[in-house]
Structures are given as structure tokens and as C-alpha cells.
């Protein structure tokens, strides 16, 4: 065996676990799920090729798909901007040499670490339940006896939006890191020129922060499309009441693992992947019009 060949072999021995995982758990499954999306498959009998039928049905004959799209887009469009606004405001407030910064930062960050758990989803259900914390508070403060926010189809989704906003901490930390990159002398020069704090924010901070805003927006949008646990727990696994919290991922889960429509669910999965890809591509295309990069 030549030395060179041996060196290749040794190198590949380091890469071996990743290569096996890539083949068996990424490339193989991608190919399989593309294939399955063109079949009728229910785990029991072998997959049966049905061409584009699954996709046709998604587009033309599946009201729950459109409900799920509607719920998911509403969630994304509301939760992502609001979360980023909170994250940025708090980051700006924390930025300027504040004492106790570490404590505040930790407190605001903690919910992002815990927010995705079953415990917090359950807690949220109890806060917004008919006899939950919010209504007890409202009654205590204003004598107003509120409805159950969770079991009302017109408000249930907004409780989940609130839960997402509550987890603004990780975006805030990324904003804080971004703010630290902005040179202080820019603000000094602006103050000498008599620019107000508000003007400094809009003319210096915001433009220089656009790359970080862009990054956070893309990450949070992709994340919001994938939201699952909280909707699952809060709605009892079914996306209720009357499908008002039927997130796309929840519908996908039901079709795949409850109804065992494996072929159809594979098609649903690819539709989601394509939607996320389009969204990401559009973000990157739009970036050149509003994201400010240093030369």
C-alpha cells in the first residue's frame, strides 16, 4: 500500500462517522422521501406509484392544508417582527454601559432556553385558560371575568404568538453582540454635530445593524415555520380549537404518524421545504436593497 493511499485512508477514518450519517440519514432519506411523495403508502403495503396525485390533492382538494398554511403564515408574520422589535429594543436599552447588564441579560435570555419545553407549553395553557392566571389577574385588577383564551378559536393562535415573543432573548443576545461592533466614535461625532438620540438611532445604529437584523430575521422565520411542541401541547395534539392552531408541522405530524398517510405526508413535507427555501431565497434577494454591508 502506497503512503499516499494510506494517508487518504487515515483521513477518511476521521470522516467516517459523518459520511455514514450523511449517506444513511440525509441523502438516502432525501431521495426516499422524494420518491414516497409520488406514492400512496401506509406502511403496511408497499408504496404504490400514483404520480403527481398527492401534490394535486394538496393544491386542489385539501382544505386542512390551506388552514395549516393560513395558521402558519399568520404565526410567522406576527411573531417574527414582534419578537425582533422586542429583542432590538431591549438590546439597545441594555447596550450603553449599564450596571447589572449581566443580570438583566440572563433574565431576558432564560425564557428562550425554556420556552420550547412541554412544561412551559403547559404553563401557558394554564395562564390563558378560562380560570387561568390572566383572567384571575384581570378580575383582581378590573373586575373583568375574561373568556378562555385557549379554547376560543379566534384567540388561541395569539397566545402562541405571545409565547414566541416571550422567547426573544436569543435574538437579543445576537443584537447585543452586533451593537458592540458599532464604533463609539461614530456616536461621538454625531453628538458633536448635534444629532439627537433618536436621529442617531435611525441614522447610525439601525443601518449598521441591518446585517444582524437580516440574520435574526432569517433564523427566526425558519424557526417559526418549524414551531411544533407548544402548539402540540396547547392544542392537545390536534391543532384545535377547530383547527385554529393547526400549524403546518402539526398537520404533517398527524398525517404521517397518526393517520399513517406516509406518501401524502412526504408530499406535504416537500411543500414545506420548498416554501421555506423560497422564503429564504427571497430574503437573500431582498437583502441587497436594505442590508448595509461594510466594504
Amino acid at each position, binding site marked *: 500500500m502506497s503512503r499516499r493511499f494510506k494517508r487518504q485512508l487515515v483521513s477518511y477514518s476521521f*470522516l467516517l462517522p459523518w*459520511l455514514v450519517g450523511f449517506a444513511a*440519514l440525509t441523502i438516502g432519506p432525501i431521495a426516499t422521501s422524494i420518491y414516497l411523495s409520488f406514492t400512496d403508502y401506509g406502511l403496511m403495503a408497499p408504496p404504490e406509484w400514483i404520480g403527481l396525485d398527492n401534490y394535486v390533492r394538496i393544491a386542489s382538494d385539501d382544505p386542512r392544508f390551506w388552514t395549516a398554511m393560513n395558521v402558519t403564515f399568520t404565526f410567522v408574520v406576527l411573531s417574527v417582527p414582534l419578537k425582533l422589535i422586542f429583542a432590538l429594543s431591549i438590546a439597545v436599552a441594555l447596550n450603553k454601559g449599564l450596571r447589572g447588564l449581566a443580570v438583566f441579560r440572563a433574565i431576558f435570555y432564560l425564557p428562550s432556553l*425554556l420556552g420550547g419545553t412541554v412544561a412551559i407549553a403547559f404553563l401557558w395553557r394554564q395562564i390563558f385558560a378560562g380560570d387561568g392566571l390572566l383572567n384571575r389577574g384581570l378580575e383582581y385588577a378590573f373586575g373583568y371575568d375574561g373568556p378562555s383564551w385557549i379554547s376560543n378559536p379566534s384567540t388561541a393562535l395569539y397566545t402562541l404568538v405571545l409565547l414566541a415573543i416571550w422567547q426573544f432573548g436569543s435574538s437579543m443576545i445576537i443584537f447585543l453582540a452586533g451593537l458592540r461592533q458599532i464604533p463609539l466614535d461614530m456616536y461621538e461625532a454625531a453628538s458633536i454635530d448635534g444629532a439627537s438620540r433618536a436621529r442617531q438611532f435611525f441614522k447610525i445604529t439601525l443601518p449598521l445593524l441591518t446585517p444582524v437584523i437580516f440574520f435574526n430575521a432569517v433564523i427566526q422565520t425558519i424557526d417559526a415555520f418549524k414551531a411544533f411542541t407548544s402548539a402540540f401541547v396547547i392544542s392537545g395534539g390536534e391543532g384545535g380549537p377547530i383547527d385554529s392552531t393547526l400549524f403546518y408541522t402539526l398537520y404533517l405530524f398527524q398525517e404521517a404518524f397518526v393517520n399513517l398517510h406516509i406518501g401524502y405526508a412526504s408530499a406535504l413535507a416537500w411543500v414545506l421545504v420548498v416554501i421555506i427555501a423560497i422564503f429564504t431565497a427571497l430574503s437573500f434577494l431582498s437583502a441587497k436593497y436594505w442590508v448595509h454591508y461594510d466594504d
Partner: protein
Amino acid sequence: MTDLSAHQNSSGLLFTSKRIVKYCLLTAASLIMLYPLLWMISSSFKPNDEIFTSVSLIPDTLSFDAYVRGWNGLSVSFSKLFFNSLMVSVLAVVGNLISCSLAAYAFTRLRFFGRDFWFALMLGTLIMPQHAVLIPQYVLFLKLGWVNTILPLVVPKFLAIDAFFVFLMVQFFRGLPKELDEAAIMDGCGPWRIYFKIILPLSMPVLATAAVFSFIWTWDDFFAPLIYLNDIQNYTVQLGLRSFVDSTAQSDWSALFAMSTLTVFPIFILFILFQRLLIEGIATTGMKR
């Protein structure tokens, strides 16, 4: 002169009063953020009839009964569920550290045929949504007879499936001076010795960050256990808590709050211990959570 100092004084005063307002607002915001968590913890010590009748955070009487009831509230004890979760999370940490550091080492320190090609594909998997592979992975594990065991939750971690950690380690390894490897090669060390004796010992910060995040993400994970584990004996705490929520419907709230508190407790402890590591990890890489 008097004029000037008066001016300074008033602006200083303005400055402090502005500061005080800012502190008050931030403190109020922190309290709003923390209130749900504090309410969860305090409710776990309250008797059931007090939880929804009082908005106070301080229980009238401090009782640990709910913890005892909750701990044995399912057909299996929560000891078993905690053990399962701990097992899965620790194995995930070990798997990620080994497999991701090996891959990252190959990508950064070794030269071999096809390296850039594989590296590009690895980066590609970073942005690929899991949904594309979810269903076939499930079918695969089903055919292997692994469903209802912890293998589907653990084995992928030993195959560096979390590309994120590979990327994190690649970034770190790139910062280590190449002269170290060259000197070691002069002394007759092969790649494996360099990996074990030089790279790993110098990489403790990134290994620690990856370990803490792996642990927390695996501990928190609900989806994978939900689809792969059916038997309550194998449940993780997240699944157990969800069954507990469903089974006690509308009755034993304090026990539910007690178990909720316990399931997030390990995360809370890790957060306290490794806060700086976590925050730096997010700030430098933009990790999502």
C-alpha cells in the same frame, strides 16, 4: 464658572433621573418576563384550591405534597423518566462530541481527496429543514426494529448528524495554530495522536459549549421521543409530562406544576452554571435558541 458648573450639575441630574427611569422600566420588564415562571414554581407549593383563586406568588402554606403526588402520578415513577432522559441526553452529548470533533478535525487539519466537496455538502445540511428526511428516517428505524428504543434518538448523534456542532468546531479548530501540527509531525506524530494530544486538549471551550447545548436540546426535545417511543417505560420526561397533563385533566394542578418545575430544573441549573458559555456561544455563532 458658576454658570458652567450649574449646567453640568443639572445635566448630571437629568442623566441620573433618566437612568433611574430606565432601570425601573427594565426591572418591570424583567418581572413580567419572569412572572409566569415564578407563578409555576409557587403554584407547585400551593394546594389545588389556592392556585386559581390567588394571584399571589407566595403560598399561604409551603407544601411539598404535590411533588410526592406528581412523582408517582403516572404508572411509572418519574425516577424512571428522569433516568431515561438523562441517559438519552448524556449519550447525545458523548456522540456529538466524538463524531462532530472527528469530522471537524478532518475538514480543518487533514488534506485528502474530496475534502472541499464533502465540506460543501456538510454546510448544505446546516440549512436543510429536517422535514425532508423525517419520514424516511422513521421508516428506516422502523424496519431496523429500533422504534420504541432509544437508538433512534442516540445513534444519529454518533454519526455527526447535528451539522451545527461540526460547523461550530470547524470555526474553532481553524483558530488553532497550524505550527502545532507541523511540529508534532516533525516529532513523528500521526493524525490520530495530533487529534488526541493536541487538538482536543486545546478545544475545551468549544467542546464545553457543544456539550451544554447538546444536553439542553436533547433534554428539551419533544418531537423525536414523541414519534419513536411508545412504551411509557421508555418515555423521556417531556413525554411523561405530556401524558401526565393529559391524564390528570382538570384535577391535580399543583402536582402538574411540581413536575413541570422539575423537568425544567436541570436546564435551569445548567443555565446558572454555564451562562457565559451559552451566551457567548449564541453571540458568536448565532445559534438559534
